[in-house]
């Protein structure tokens, strides 16, 4: 069920990127697409009746753990997404300084 939701989020983000004409909305669509992807990645590591993969001296043995590797992948991917979004917003501010608008249609009129 949650994997379907993740793929639907991914498709929403892609639809937004293909159709929006405002720079800030394009950045938001990119973020929605990435969030859908991250939820999908975490969902492939789930095990029914599994617990968080933390082993301490007070935990019992023989426990069923969930898969820790997709969580590590998503940790890295989220940080990379933050870096890309920050750079995209900096470009948006630079575009606004040059054209005084965020809308692609108005920019094409100015050229």
């Amino acid at each position: 069920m949650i994997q379907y939701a993740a793929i639907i989020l991914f498709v929403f983000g892609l639809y937004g990127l293909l159709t929006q004409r405002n720079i800030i909305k394009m950045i938001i669509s990119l973020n929605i697409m990435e969030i859908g992807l991250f939820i999908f990645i975490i969902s492939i590591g789930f095990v029914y009746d599994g617990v968080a993969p933390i082993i301490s001296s007070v935990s019992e043995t023989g426990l069923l753990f969930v898969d820790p590797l997709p969580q590590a992948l998503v940790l890295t991917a989220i940080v990379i997404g933050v870096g890309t979004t920050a750079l995209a917003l900096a470009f948006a501010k630079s575009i606004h300084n040059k054209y005084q608008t965020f809308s692609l249609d108005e920019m094409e009129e100015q050229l």
Partner: protein
Amino acid sequence: MKNLIGLLVSLLLGVLIILTLASSPSFPEFGSVDINDRVAGEYLDNDNVEEVGSGNIVTAIVVGYRGFDTLGEVTVLFISALGIALIFSDKKQKRLDLKFKPNFMLKTGSRIVFGIILITSLYIIFHGHLTPGGGFPGGVMIASAILLLYLADDKFRSNIKGFKVLEGVAGSLFVIIGLLGLVIGTYFLENFIPVGSLGELLSAGIIPIIYMLIGLKVGSEISGIVDNFLTEGESA
């Protein structure tokens, strides 16, 4: 018209993905994954856990088994912060003029909250190998504390030069620890400090040290980005 084509392409992609994954024999059902089929089975094996020394297996993967990926991730943030400083590189900068003017209660109250947030973030960074968390959430919390100060006081500017120095030094130390592993042991990023016992604060070799460096680096980088966005050039 363009919206219709976009809608069709996206829907087609979504349907294709769902159908392929549902009918694929090797793709496991949601929740019924056998960990021992995957590499993760080896990570959770008790002997390997004792060898790496970290109780939090995700931390063991992020800093231990896949430490090279973490180095790359820290580099992504570094190059983003560098690029934003490059795009906005200007003459002397002053704070952006906003319409909202904060009042005295906000300015004083935020300084108290700043201290609390800072202590929490340091706790999360230090205990990265025992509880969930680690360097990345802790570093972002440091940056959010600084953002709070920026928002609550419209004349506040943090010490940007100090942050840049901290960023460069923390990054260099990370790579130097890796190179020390190459020189002292035989592999890059190999653990050359005694591991200690599972569950103690001072254990897990180089993992707490690297997480500390990562936390400081992430905090100073994102604070630098916040400063770049909230300032503008002197000549209006």
